């Protein structure tokens, strides 16, 4: 004998579960680590309870029938014909799961987009700093060239006139000989 057992996605993220409940149109109230839904069964309101790292749905196994009775009257004849009109616990959880997974995927995509933006922003800042550093080094080198030439020229008796022509530094050195 063999069996195949499947579970639904564990509801780990509270905010996403609440959004999923909103999406399936299920109202709820919060009570500490419980999300109490508007769904009712024999034992009262069905709820999600934080248990071993996930929100576990607690309900009475006869809930579907009692809800059916609430909607359609006491155990009716021919009830099977109307059964699909009410969302069973299983289909409710599947609907919540579907929305939860959709919201989860969107959240992941959003986080990935933000992450890439951050990386791009960090890279942009790094490149700007690199460009600034290179530019400062170039200007510093040119200034060093200029100062060195001026100093040597003065030591050799030249008068120095400095001009800025377009992007060039022009030094005119003059001295008189006899």
């Amino acid at each position: 004998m063999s069996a195949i057992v499947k579970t639904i996605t564990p509801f780990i993220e509270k905010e996403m579960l609440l959004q999923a409940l909103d999406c399936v149109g299920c109202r709820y109230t919060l009570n500490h680590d419980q999300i109490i839904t508007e769904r009712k069964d024999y034992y009262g309101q069905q709820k999600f309870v934080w248990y071993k790292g996930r929100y576990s749905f607690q309900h009475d196994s006869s809930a579907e029938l009692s809800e059916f009775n609430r909607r359609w009257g006491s155990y009716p004849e021919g009830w099977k014909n109307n059964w699909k009109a009410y969302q069973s616990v299983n289909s409710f959880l599947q609907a919540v799961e579907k929305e939860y997974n959709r919201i989860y995927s969107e959240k992941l995509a959003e986080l990935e987009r933000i992450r890439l933006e951050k990386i791009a922003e960090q890279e942009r800042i790094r490149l700007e700093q690199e460009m600034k550093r290179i530019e400062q080094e170039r200007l510093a080198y040119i200034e060093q060239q200029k100062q060195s030439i001026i100093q040597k020229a003065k030591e050799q008796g030249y008068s120095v006139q400095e001009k800025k022509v377009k992007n060039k530094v022009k030094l005119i050195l003059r001295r008189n000989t006899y």
Partner: protein
Amino acid sequence: MAEQTIIIEIDDGGKIKAATEGIKGEMCLDEIQSLIEGFGELHSVKKTDEFFQGQTLNVTNKIHSRIE
């Protein structure tokens, strides 16, 4: 009294162009070299008429010295 002029241009990449006026012979190269030495590899040297005027004078002087 003679005026000696050296015009030095440093472009935005740090390249240097130097030209002399009123300095004859190899002395003009020596003057430039003393000023820009260590600021990059030499790309080209173009000698003007003044450069060769200086050499002619030197040769002439040497010849006169030998005769005397």
